[in-house]
């Protein structure tokens, strides 16, 4: 990558640079855009100084109201809501796995060598991923009314894109050897899928599923804020009533479940995959 300013100059006097002028110019443009956007954002973002000055006092107030944590409240409603959150995350992930398998297969160009279908499948995956799970939740609350069903569907639809994209990519990376061997033996397409592709993509499939479940446990905790069931609904009502000691309890419960989910995922991954 070294670029000498003039090849005829003695070696000691040449100026060596890592990048060509075009590359340096391009990088400079990126830096300029970054700095300009930061400066513009700082200048135009609306920050109310009185609120900022008030912040330490508010934080102290918040912590005082949160303490002592309302532990006795846990068995009443928080436990059920917490379980509902876990159900939403798990069922949503399963739904996504079931729906994403065919879409992922359709998106893999080596399995379905027909470009329009690949593009259609990719379009489904992209649209599933670009809509936030909270927006999916708003849509499903609008359709099925408030409750865990809306949350499950929101988690499921948001996860299709993620699972399908990664699964499709894993399929595209699989080795052609075993597949050709099966085809040469005259296997029907079902056997090619089950004994040619599946063993190759199985580890990545399960690790994608576990990883998504872990994300979904975190995501399903907020869906209740828009009415889609789970612990978010308990959080929302505690917030609206300014019961900060209950808020603290709920936050602690979410924290515990998230950490637990992470431990489960690491252990399962270690043993199974």
């Amino acid at each position: 990558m070294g670029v000498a300013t003039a090849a005829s100059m003695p070696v000691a006097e040449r100026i060596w640079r890592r990048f060509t002028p075009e590359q340096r110019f391009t990088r400079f443009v990126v830096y300029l855009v970054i700095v300009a956007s930061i400066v513009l954002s700082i200048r135009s973002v609306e920050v109310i100084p009185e609120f900022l000055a008030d912040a330490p006092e508010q934080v102290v107030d918040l912590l005082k109201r949160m303490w002592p944590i309302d532990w006795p409240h846990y068995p009443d409603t928080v436990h059920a809501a917490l379980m509902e959150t876990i159900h939403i995350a798990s069922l949503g992930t399963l739904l996504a796995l079931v729906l994403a398998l065919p879409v992922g297969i359709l998106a893999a160009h080596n399995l379905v060598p027909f470009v329009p279908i690949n593009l259609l499948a990719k379009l489904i995956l992209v649209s599933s991923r670009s809509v936030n799970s909270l927006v999916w939740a708003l849509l499903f609350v609008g359709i099925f009314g408030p409750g865990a069903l809306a949350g499950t569907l929101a988690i499921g639809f948001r996860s299709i894109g993620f699972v399908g994209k990664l699964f499709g990519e894993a399929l595209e990376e699989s080795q052609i050897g075993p597949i050709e061997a099966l085809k040469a033996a005259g296997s029907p397409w079902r056997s090619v899928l089950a004994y040619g592709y599946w063993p190759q993509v199985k580890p990545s499939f399960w690790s994608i599923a576990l990883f998504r479940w872990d994300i979904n446990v975190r995501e399903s905790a907020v869906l209740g804020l828009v009415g889609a069931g789970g612990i978010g609904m308990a959080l929302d009502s505690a917030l609206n009533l300014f019961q900060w000691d209950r808020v603290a309890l709920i936050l602690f419960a979410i924290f515990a479940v998230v950490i637990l989910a992470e431990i489960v995922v690491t252990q399962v991954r270690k043993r199974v995959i």
Partner: protein
Amino acid sequence: MNTVAALPADPFQRSVWPRVAAVALLVYVIYAAAQMEISWERVQTGLYNAQRFFGRLFPPNFSRWELLAKGLVESLEIAVLASTLGILLALPIGLAAARNLMPPWVTWPARLIIVMARSFHPVIVAILFVKAVGFGALAGILALTVASVGFIGKLFTEAIEEISLKQVEAVRATGAPFASVLWFGVLPQVFSRFIGFATYQLDSNLRNSTMVGIVGAGGIGGTLFAAFQRFDYDFVCAILISIISLIMIGEVLATAVRRIFIEHATVADLFRAGGAASRERHLEDD
């Protein structure tokens, strides 16, 4: 040919455990689905509602575009500032958490900060910041800063822990001070991955900055939620279309930045087709 006789009758015989797991999963699904109160009646009303709902969603109504543009600009500002602050904070924290460079008494607190920052969804963190600093963009910026610290901190730590120590030792052997060890021994090894997570985080912050408004932390989310609650569905549709286009533009720009810094692409290269980073895989998608 004795070996053939020794094979089991069914060479593809499955072991017992996957079956047990499958049955357990099925039982769980039935149990959990029973809690969801799904009934045929509900599905029917749902389908009817869906029809009406989608009917009212279209055509999108862009007549209040000024409100829409204001919200989008605020979301962009939140994303830019949160990413900047988050990256600036995550670099020292991520470095402090790297076990191969730092002693345990430094890595433990740093790891704790990263775990804490990662464990809550940005919207929940936003609720707390709304209480602390009031409604508005600042709460959103702070909430997404926390999320960025958690995400970049974790990945940056992992990247540093995977570096080759030979170069670090070589720099140390020249008697270089610690800052030079970092600058010449560590940073060049993690720079391209760092660009990867930084652009990825900007993308992710952009997605979340359109949502934190639901709890009053600024950006387009507040407008979206208000329009939803007023059953202003044609405006909701307009907002959703704008959010999705914004996110897609953000994704294209992030890919361009990755190609410039990782593949040393120039402006002219960007307009040519192909390139490995444009198809780069991200497992950490959220």
